[in-house]
């Protein structure tokens, strides 16, 4: 432990998670002090870094770029091996050669969000003013700030208008925010399993998670990085609670039932007798191996604060006034975190401005997580929508046999 010089401590760290937060193995841009970000909390942030991955090639007209926006605990490694866990990308079912987001046809950009912990500036980054990790000195950010922080990246890549912005859950919120704040720069938008505002129940779940982190003594008022400790237990409990909300009662029952794990009978103890307990503990412990606790606090807060209608005089339709973007809204029947009625609200608002909108509800019993899983109807909808939009945008047709 080296409290005297945290920068040196962090630089000397062998923890791949700490290394990725400081110096990402992916590409990144450093936005200079001359281009500060005006945050929704009215503070200025500069300089800052946005780490990102790209896949495929940008065409000569720079018209085939798709921005993939990640969810709460996602990152830029959407379709390639994760540098910390060694696992495949989080959306390889959707993004890749011949996939619905076909990297042989489209240029895919996936940034790590502001506030994240995979190389973009966040609470685990070094605060240039103190030489220490930001911790709780990092400003509270919003979904709007995340999106605004991605604009210099798109400029840097020479893209005037993104062909598409797509994402699920918090990624879907970024999609809506892109389509609202930067209308002219989004040709089509695919918000999946999301909502235009975060419900009271969802804020409640987030608060449980944050309190679990903060109740861990190793959280140390957010200064755990400079102290060389980490709030593993708190963050794991937060993840366990959240993970339940990503599934459905039906999926849990089907997968685990009341089955016991590695024991023949109940042990009359508080060990993980049930498979579902063992599963959740595993989810918790693997999560803390790759994620920063303070990032979890900041990003959940950003989601809580998200309310696109409130930004527009409580009329959601005003968020999309004058839009020429083509939308494809997607929900899942068993998603109780962002239920279909919340997607329908988005659709109604888009109808109210006579926007070009498609809306599909996919039948699935896998809950909110369905958007990350193998859902053929989802793939068919996204592929069909993107093909039709690409034709309107004048992109080259998909190769035969790839439809």
């Amino acid at each position, binding site marked *: 432990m080296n409290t005297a010089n945290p920068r040196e401590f962090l630089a000397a760290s062998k923890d791949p998670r700490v290394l990725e937060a400081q110096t990402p193995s992916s590409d990144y841009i450093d936005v200079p002090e001359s281009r500060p970000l005006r945050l929704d909390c009215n503070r200025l942030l500069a300089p800052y870094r946005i780490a990102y991955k790209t896949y495929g090639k940008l065409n000569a007209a720079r018209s085939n770029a798709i921005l993939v926006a990640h969810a709460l605990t996602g990152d830029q490694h959407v379709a390639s091996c994760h540098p910390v866990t060694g696992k495949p990308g989080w959306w390889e079912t959707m993004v890749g050669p011949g996939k619905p987001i076909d990297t042989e046809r489209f240029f895919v950009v996936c940034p790590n969000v502001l506030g994240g912990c995979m190389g973009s500036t966040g609470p685990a980054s070094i605060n240039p003013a103190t030489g220490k990790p930001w911790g709780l000195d990092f400003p509270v950010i919003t979904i709007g700030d995340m999106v605004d922080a991605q604009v210099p990246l798109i400029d840097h890549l020479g893209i005037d208008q993104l062909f598409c912005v797509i994402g699920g859950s918090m990624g879907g919120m970024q999609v809506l925010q892109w389509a609202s704040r930067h209308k002219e720069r989004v040709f089509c938008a695919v918000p999946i399993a999301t909502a235009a505002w975060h419900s009271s129940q969802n804020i409640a779940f987030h608060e449980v998670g944050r309190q679990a982190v903060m109740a861990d003594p190793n959280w140390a008022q957010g200064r755990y990085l400079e102290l060389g400790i980490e709030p593993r237990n708190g963050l794991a409990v937060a993840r366990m609670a959240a993970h339940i909300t990503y599934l459905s009662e039906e999926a849990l029952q089907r997968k685990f039932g009341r089955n016991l794990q590695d024991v023949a009978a109940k042990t009359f103890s508080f060990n993980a007798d049930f498979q579902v307990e063992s599963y959740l503990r595993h989810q918790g412990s693997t999560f803390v191996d790759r994620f920063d606790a303070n990032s979890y606090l900041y990003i959940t807060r950003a989601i809580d604060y998200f309310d696109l209608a409130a930004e527009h005089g409580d009329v959601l339709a005003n968020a999309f006034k004058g839009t020429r973007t083509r939308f494809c809204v997607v929900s899942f029947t068993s998603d109780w975190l962002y239920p279909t009625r919340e997607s329908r609200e988005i*659709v109604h608002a888009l109808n109210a*401005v006579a926007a070009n*909108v498609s809306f599909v509800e996919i039948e699935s019993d896998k809950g909110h997580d369905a958007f990350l899983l193998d859902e053929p109807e989802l793939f068919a909808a996204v592929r069909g*929508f993107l093909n039709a939009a690409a034709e309107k945008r004048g992109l080259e047709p998909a190769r035969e046999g790839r439809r």
Partner: protein
Amino acid sequence: MLAPAVRPATRVDHLLIAEMVEAGSRVLDVGCGDGALLQLLADTKQVDGRGIEVSRERVNACVARGLAVIQGDADRDLVDYPDDAFDYAILSLTIQATRQPKAVLEQLLRIGRRAIVSFPNFGHWQVRATLAFTGRMPVTENLPEAWYVSPNAHLCTIKDFADLCRLVGARVERAVAFNASGQQLGTWIPLTVHNLMGEKAVFMLTRRWAG
């Protein structure tokens, strides 16, 4: 690119609607089903087309073939659209299945500069004959389901529909009836004969009121 598989024979009312619609216009097809009309209008008239369909499976199939369709229904979802959002608001063989045909027709006339409505004619002689001679609800090509499974809640005749148009203040720009073999009945034929010989009808309407 949207290479159609074997497409079912195009419906005569669809062909007539495609003939009525101006090229490049904005169209809403309410109750768009499998998207056949939207596809026809896109292919032949390059319209900016949208659809509403109640069946989730059909919506997903439409979106997968690149059509802008939402899951919803005529009774609930038309109120969201602004006035004059479309050049044409089309209700194709759907009005008889809505809960409130009058309210739906008024919404169509509000959100479209023109409304095009097609419907099966319950005044057709076969329907009348079945009811008169068997004493049972008719099951025909246009009304294929038994009464207890049929989605049709508000069946009407051509005369009934003409009355409704008057009631809501719609001007009938064009009205065409098709006989059982899909041929248009001549416009010189009196309405009473249309009502007897027409199996289905297509009306193009505008609103009389200002705005």
